[in-house]
């Protein structure tokens, strides 16, 4: 029943994303209109993929660092991505792929640095060190990019933050194809780690006794979740709340088993971001709202409602 509801909701969200938009497209021309074919449809697919990726990355990282406040950007990825994007603009790297690629490289660099810091004091990733390193690296990268922007004359640099605040305006079939080829691998790694992640919730030592190679698990989950997030940042900037709230909603309704939680996080994240992006495009048309604002406006009340129901039980 819950599953049927979620799938129905996901289909509805996707359908609305294709059917609704600021431009009026007659129903008879839906399939032929370039506005639908080359703008709405790739954007709807991208919104679903990005939302789903953020949901899965958030759920996995929350399990990894055993911290309910963890979100996909906690580990310094947003800061690294923004530094990459700002550097690309400052160095006048041209072409439509410059910004996404630079953001991706920046996010990967931050990931590498945080990973290295997380290994401090041993061969194993320490979740607490990981969180601290992530926050520190993220803050440092954000500071450097803000310094570049504030010292620069170029309006392009000031506008770089607009892109980083997140949005799916850059969606096209190329970005969709890139993400479709890229995302399945880290997603598969995380789905495969569902059972060990359940055991990790018992604590690292008990998980080890139950046959989980905790050190390897933590590395794989960390790298896969970060790779997923880095790709999401590259194509859509930093979209908040999806990766934080969707996993919690999933846990409230489906429980803590990752075999169910991860697919739920994917479908739920995709659904939330699809609804949010449709609302961002349509609500104040012809203007467009930053989608991150809408995910918070839609996601937080739902979350609060569920939280109340859950605490009452």
């Amino acid at each position: 029943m819950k599953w049927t509801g979620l799938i129905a909701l996901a289909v509805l969200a996707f359908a609305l994303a294709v059917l609704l938009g600021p431009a009026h497209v007659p129903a008879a021309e839906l399939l032929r209109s370039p506005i639908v074919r080359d703008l709405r449809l790739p954007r709807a697919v991208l919104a679903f993929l990005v939302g789903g990726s953020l949901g899965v990355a958030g759920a996995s990282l929350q399990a990894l660092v055993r911290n309910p406040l963890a979100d996909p950007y906690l580990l310094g990825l947003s800061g690294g991505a923004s530094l990459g994007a700002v550097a690309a603009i400052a160095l006048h790297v041209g072409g439509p792929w410059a910004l996404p690629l630079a953001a991706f490289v920046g996010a990967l660099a931050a990931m590498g640095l945080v990973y290295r810091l997380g290994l401090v004091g041993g061969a194993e990733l320490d979740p607490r060190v990981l969180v601290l390193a992530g926050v520190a690296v993220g803050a440092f990268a954000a500071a450097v990019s803000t310094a570049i922007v504030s010292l620069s004359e170029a309006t392009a640099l000031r506008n770089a933050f607009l892109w980083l605040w997140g949005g799916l305006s850059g969606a096209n079939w190329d970005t969709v194809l890139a993400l479709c080829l890229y995302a399945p691998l880290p997603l598969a790694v995380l789905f495969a780690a569902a059972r060990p992640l359940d055991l990790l919730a018992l604590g690292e030592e008990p998980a080890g006794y139950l046959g989980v190679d905790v050190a390897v698990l933590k590395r794989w989950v960390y790298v896969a979740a970060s790779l997923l997030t880095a790709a999401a940042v590259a194509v859509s900037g930093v979209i908040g709340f999806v990766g934080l709230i969707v996993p919690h909603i999933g846990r409230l309704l489906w429980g803590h088993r990752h075999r169910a939680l991860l697919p739920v996080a994917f479908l739920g994240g995709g659904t939330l971001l699809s609804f949010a992006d449709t609302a961002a495009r349509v609500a104040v048309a012809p203007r467009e709202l930053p989608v991150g604002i809408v995910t918070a406006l839609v996601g937080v009340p739902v979350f609060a409602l569920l939280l109340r129901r859950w605490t009452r039980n």
Partner: protein
Amino acid sequence: MACGRAEHRATGAGSLAVTDDAGRAVTLAAPARRIVSLAPSSTELLFAIGAGDRVVGRTTWCRYPAAALRVPVVGDGLNPNVEAVVAQHPDLVVLYASALNETAARQFERLGIPAVILRQDLLEDVARDARMLGRLTAHESGGDSVARAVLEVFEAPIRRRVAFVVWDNPPMVIGAGSFLDQQVALAGASNAFHDLGSASAAVSLETIAARDPDVVITIADSDDTRLPAFASAREWQVVRAVRERRVLTLPGALFGRPSPRAAAAVAELRRRLEALR
């Protein structure tokens, strides 16, 4: 210089052939040097294209420009005094289109004097005949520039719709609250996002595509006026102006802020929009 080259080319080609406004084929062995102009409109046009020194006869009514007053009068333009015209030894007679003048034109031709009939009723006719007279007098460039100046009058009222895209992701456009909206109106075009009250606003790419502006304008930080990067982005090709490369990149120094040079900016914007035609 331009006249000299044209003359050279004309003589090199041997002869000049045109079809006049009555549909008659007229051939000159060489560019006309002695012209009798039998209508005020053609007299003014000959002076305007720089061939005034070749006018050796005019009508009583050809009183503009002032220099034309020094040219000998040969009578009226309709049913002209053929004898008085021939007395000026013209190698070209320019007549106004009417039934009587077609008879006169045949008379001149029988006397071995080429005659062209110009029908100048509408403003477009002025442009066409400026080019024809330019050719016949080896003043092609003069004729051309007069023709262009006349045609500009028609082009100015064509209200092009433009969209100022000041940032591409998310797409941000200029609304009615900006000086750019005023400048674009003064330059004879209109802003496709005039309905937005603020100076700028984020809009969906879909909205830009649906509003279908004729030209997309961006403001460059520097004087680097190459096409912006988004012009080659795949999703932007849905916007017709981008797909057809009707993208103007304006230098930020003149257009990046409201300034006392607003008049110069408007003139420059008009010039650049016209250059895109």
